[in-house]
């Protein structure tokens, strides 16, 4: 069964600084999708970024980028120029073609002014 691990239950970053959230996963599949979701205090699930495993190029969305290491089964999220509004719970998720999401346990990110 696929599993997703986030080894950092909590992280903090100074405003305007850069922070990296870690995620590793386990799968025997070669084609799949990886996601980072943000969950603010409102508890809504907001897609931050997604990566197709067959693409070697790392996905980027404005201040958010990933470091996808397929052989190592690692998918970290880098947030540059951190803003107060980035404070939230961040979930890494895996999805194999046609199947449901498998979520990691989450990392709570605090942004310090």
């Amino acid at each position, binding site marked *: 069964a696929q599993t997703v691990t986030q080894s950092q239950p909590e992280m903090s970053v100074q405003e305007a600084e850069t922070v990296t959230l870690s995620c590793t996963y386990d799968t025997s599949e070669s084609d799949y999708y990886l996601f980072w979701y943000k969950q603010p205090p409102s*508890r809504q699930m907001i897609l931050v970024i997604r990566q197709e495993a067959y693409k070697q190029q790392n996905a980027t969305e404005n201040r958010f980028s990933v470091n996808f290491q397929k052989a190592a089964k690692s998918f970290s999220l880098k947030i540059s120029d951190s803003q107060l509004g980035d404070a939230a719970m961040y979930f890494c998720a895996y999805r194999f073609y046609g199947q*449901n999401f498998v979520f990691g346990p989450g990392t709570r990110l605090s942004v310090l002014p």
Partner: protein
Amino acid sequence: EPEVTQTPSHQVTQMGQEVILRCVPISNHLYFYWYRQILGQKVEFLVSFYNNEISEKSEIFDDQFSVERPDGSNFTLKIRSTKLEDSAMYFCASSQGGDNYGYTFGSGTRLTVV
């Protein structure tokens, strides 16, 4: 941007009562899902629904749960006899289909069983 709408945002119910959580998926989406997040824990898959039938369900989705698409727009999750441990945030999601299309999650319904 199209949204998945969930109502109510917060529901309080007595143990043993039935609850129905409602979702309006995005209109041209074909696949529908329910996920659950117990406070402080990770989001867990409950069930997926396609072509008017359940396509996959987890072990959490036991006989007390059911889903229905009663008309062309709503997608509901019914819990027949609620238990204290059913207290959680319930997320509906929909997708157009295939894996070139991402999910869209609703904003969730917080269910509190007392």
